[in-house]
């Protein structure tokens, strides 16, 4: 086991500011968000450039180099549906602080992203879903095995496949949250690494409640064995919870300043 890995989600072209900055190749807004997340303690940064069908390769290269040059080769998760753009990003990627992550594959239409990761010796986030929300724990485990077989057949190390149980939303699918935790427990029992889009749990909830729900859920998920998550690292309550859980799990040695580290 190891210290929990956080993947900062705030460089996402769903944000108008980021989209505009990417379109115009304007570094300032992107560097600002990167710095905020790194200062807040993010391990990896996710770089979502959208589908970027026309200029994805050039766009991803620009973003990777911009971030790594300015932030001491910060490790990145390359997030786009454009496979060529991922390969192009990996080409210019510096691995000194960690392998690149391909975000993401699933057991359905996106299964070939595992091939992309295998080809460029990257980590892959593998979503345990085919179409829509998996029906239960067994279905999630089934997809995991399908993707694992493919990855291992391509020569990947199981440690380079981070399985995402698909975190469901509390407001509406409350009855299935137990399945998510149980799936994580089973992943962990078999030694697999995991990740997930954590804030999904609080989707649609009032803004003041979201950090509370997110923090409670991540603590329970970490106890179930979750090894990383895609989160907003600027959510102080969430980061404090993660750091505290790492202490409780004996992954990080306690010191009075542990929240500052």
């Amino acid at each position, binding site marked *: 086991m190891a*210290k929990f890995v956080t993947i900062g989600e705030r460089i996402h072209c769903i944000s108008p500011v980021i989209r505009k900055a990417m379109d115009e190749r304007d570094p300032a807004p992107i560097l600002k968000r990167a710095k905020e997340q790194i200062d807040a303690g993010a391990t990896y940064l996710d770089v979502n450039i959208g589908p970027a069908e026309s200029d994805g390769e050039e766009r991803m290269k620009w973003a990777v180099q911009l971030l790594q040059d300015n932030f001491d080769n910060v490790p990145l998760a390359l997030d786009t549906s454009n496979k060529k753009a991922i390969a192009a990003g990996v080409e210019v990627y510096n691995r000194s602080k960690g392998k690149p992550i391909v975000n993401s594959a699933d057991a359905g239409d996106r299964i070939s992203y595992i091939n992309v990761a295998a080809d460029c010796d990257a980590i892959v986030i593998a979503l345990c879903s085919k179409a829509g929300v998996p029906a239960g724990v067994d279905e999630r485990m089934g997809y995991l095995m399908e993707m694992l077989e493919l990855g291992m057949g391509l020569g990947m190390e199981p440690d380079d496949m981070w399985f995402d149980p698909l975190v469901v939303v509390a407001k509406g699918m409350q009855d299935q949250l137990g399945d998510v935790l149980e799936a994580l427990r089973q992943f962990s029992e078999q030694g697999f690494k995991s990740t997930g889009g954590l804030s999904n749990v609080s989707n649609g909830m009032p803004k003041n409640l979201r950090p509370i729900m997110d923090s409670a859920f991540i603590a329970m998920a970490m106890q179930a064995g979750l090894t990383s998550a895609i989160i907003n690292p600027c959510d102080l309550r969430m980061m404090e919870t993660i750091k505290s859980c790492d202490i409780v799990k004996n992954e990080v*040695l306690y010191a*009075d300043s542990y929240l*500052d580290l």
Partner: protein
Amino acid sequence: MAFTNKPQVFNAKINPITFGANGHEVTLGGSNVYPLYSFDAPIANAPKVGIQVSDKGFDASLPELAKFYEGCNTVVEMAKRAASAEGVDFVCLRLESADPNGDNASVEDCAALAKAVAEAIDKPLAVIGSKNVEKDATLLGKVAEALTGYNPLLLSCKEENYKAVAASAIMAYGAKVAGESAVDINLAKQLNVLVKQMGIAAGNTVMNVGTAAAGYGFEYVASTMDRVKGAAMTQNDVDLQLPIVTPLGDEAWGVKETLLEESDNPAWGAREERGIQMEICTASACLASGSDAVILKHPASVKTISAFVAALM
């Protein structure tokens, strides 16, 4: 089935830190394997052995020690003699007389003595202060100033005086400083964090995580050092990737087994022999647990420990 060796080599490593100057330097740390695990990977810098000289002289009741320092009339002469002992990597001057509850020597006199010693010896110099936190807050800064250019290692700053010591000794005069905690792993880490938060870069500080004489609660020392090295290597905890320096002469020579005179218990044999054995036992246990340098008082134990390290590299 045949045994296959799986070396435990880590991506993490202990920060290498060099002290001394003018062609007389030693480097501590740098290793990316567990302590003394030279069978897993070559150890970047072998553990070092220092010899401690007190400004209050030596224990003349120990015949072999008296013979070793024979003819030395000053602390500087003692330090020169100590530097020439077999197996010595560095000399450690202990400013015992600075203790306000003892002779209360002035910081100026102590700093001048440290400078005279540094000028006289052909080995890197470490200095241990009075062990009084208030006195050391000014003393170590003054010593660092006097030793400008000698790149000394100063022991130690503690939780109570790290701000003053780090600001003067490290920031103003570029000395290397040890952060001292009393066999408490969380405090050891916390002190490193506090010093780092003052803006001091890694590579300027080492740790003295404390020790005890073998048999006097040493299991706590072993456990502390094990966990420090474990966190540094397996968890890549940068706040614990500092070399450990362990002065142990005072502890080894300060327990019943080494204080009791032969006349009080003839069955135990000569006190000097017992003291040497206690230093050797404690030092070898510290090295096995994680010390990157040990500091001893007796030249006979220095020689043995130095040979012990050489044989394991």
